[in-house]
């Protein structure tokens, strides 16, 4: 069980309250979690990572276990606490005004 926290705008888009819970097959990485997230909520495709390049949108960050995972390779394993569901993967919109 993987827990994911979305920024408020994307919660509205996905029509969810609070955390999302996902089942991820195989290795738990940023890529596999985002794949599972987009499969469960197709409306989120393109809002977190570019659909063509798969690159993270520059004003979004990935945090978990008090670490910034935004710049780690997408196929690196996520922390154990995320894979066990103890801690959520937080997708955060950068504080950039607006």
């Amino acid at each position: 069980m993987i827990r994911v926290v979305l920024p408020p705008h994307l919660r509205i888009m996905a029509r969810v309250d609070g955390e999302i819970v996902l089942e991820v097959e195989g290795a738990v990485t940023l890529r596999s979690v985002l794949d599972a997230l987009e499969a469960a909520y197709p409306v989120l495709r393109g809002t977190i990572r570019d659909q063509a390049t798969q690159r993270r949108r520059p004003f979004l960050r990935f945090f978990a276990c008090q670490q910034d995972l935004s710049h780690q390779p997408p196929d690196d394993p996520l922390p154990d606490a995320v894979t066990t569901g103890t801690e959520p993967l937080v997708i955060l919109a950068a504080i950039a005004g607006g």
Partner: protein
Amino acid sequence: MGTATDRLCGQDDGERGLGLRAPRSHDRPKAVNESDTCGGVLAGEQKGKRMSRVRVLVGTRKGAFILTADGKRDNWTIDGPFFGGWEIYHIKGSPADPNRIYASQTSGWFGQVIQRSDDGGKTWEPVGNHVEYDGVPGTHQWYDGTQHPWEFARVWHLEPSLADPDTVYAGVEDAALFRSTDGGLTWHELSGLRRDSSGHLWQPGAGGMCLHTILLDPDNPGRIFAAISAAGAFRSDDGGKTWLPINRGLHSEYIPDPEAEVGHCVHRIALHPSRPQVLFMQKHWDVMRSDDAGESWHEISGNLPSDFGFPIAVHAHEPETVYVVPIKSDHEHFPPEGKLRVYRSRTGGHEWEALTNGLPQRDCYVNVLREAMAVDALDPCGIYFGTTGGQVYVSADSGDTWQPIVRDLPAVLSVEVQTLP
């Protein structure tokens, strides 16, 4: 041609319109070829037929709003915000099915979303947002003159087909034209525009390199006009497969060759559906006209206090009646003298009158963006515009008098009107 500064210094740009009762549309004889329809309105509407409602679709920096009123246009209901917190660059209804509305929802954080309503804006569903250039997109000029890769940023304009609610065109930044034929689920680039029209010479304006205007010729289903900042105007006669630049006669001092084939910062073009070969253009500087579908242009700025501006619109029932909103300059994006004035020409250009009744005539420093003016199909014709200060104004008498529909929205990016039975 001269500069607008010259004109500002040498012109009486005062209240030429004040105290005058300009002739109303029903006072005027109808030209033989005047049409009863205008872009974005229901097919088959008849001049003089009392329509019961208008629906004004407003895109802002922080969401969409839908303003509705009956044919008198004096008592408004405001719905929204829809998509609160997102930039709504454009929202427009299908002329073939007024319940079908498309909206471009965009964000620097979360990218592009296309929304679709099938019930007149009551409910919305996201449709496809995979907007990918055809092939290797190549490069265009950057601000410093170097070549820069084409990168998708957002959808500026959505133009539903005149006949098919499921067909809709999207003008995007970096500039390109896309089409969906399945109600917005999938998008495909009409890439001949970039290939045929010297795309490597296009460059961004201050707002980015955007394709912001799409005009569909009601007489010729294969003919499409598009305009790009800063590249110019373009025309396809085969449904978007191949394209020609149509910029002969434009003169722009901010490019190395002021009369180059491409590179002009066209802000908006407009046509009247009864005469789609006649085009009106608000360029970065200069208001222009073409009588031959863009083959050649001539200036019609005439006595405007400034010929810089963004929107341009044509009266629904008078093809020679044109509206612009003069802005002081390209470095001072507000009305000259702090007076918000719409200018109307009833002669197809050259001679313009200030329309001020009901608009702020002191201390007004808002802008009116290129997508933020529209006309309805009622008689008298209603004119609408929104400002960066969040006001949306309506004139229910072709511009003679104005009133705010709403004063305190977020900055207005776009205004469209649907005339409903």
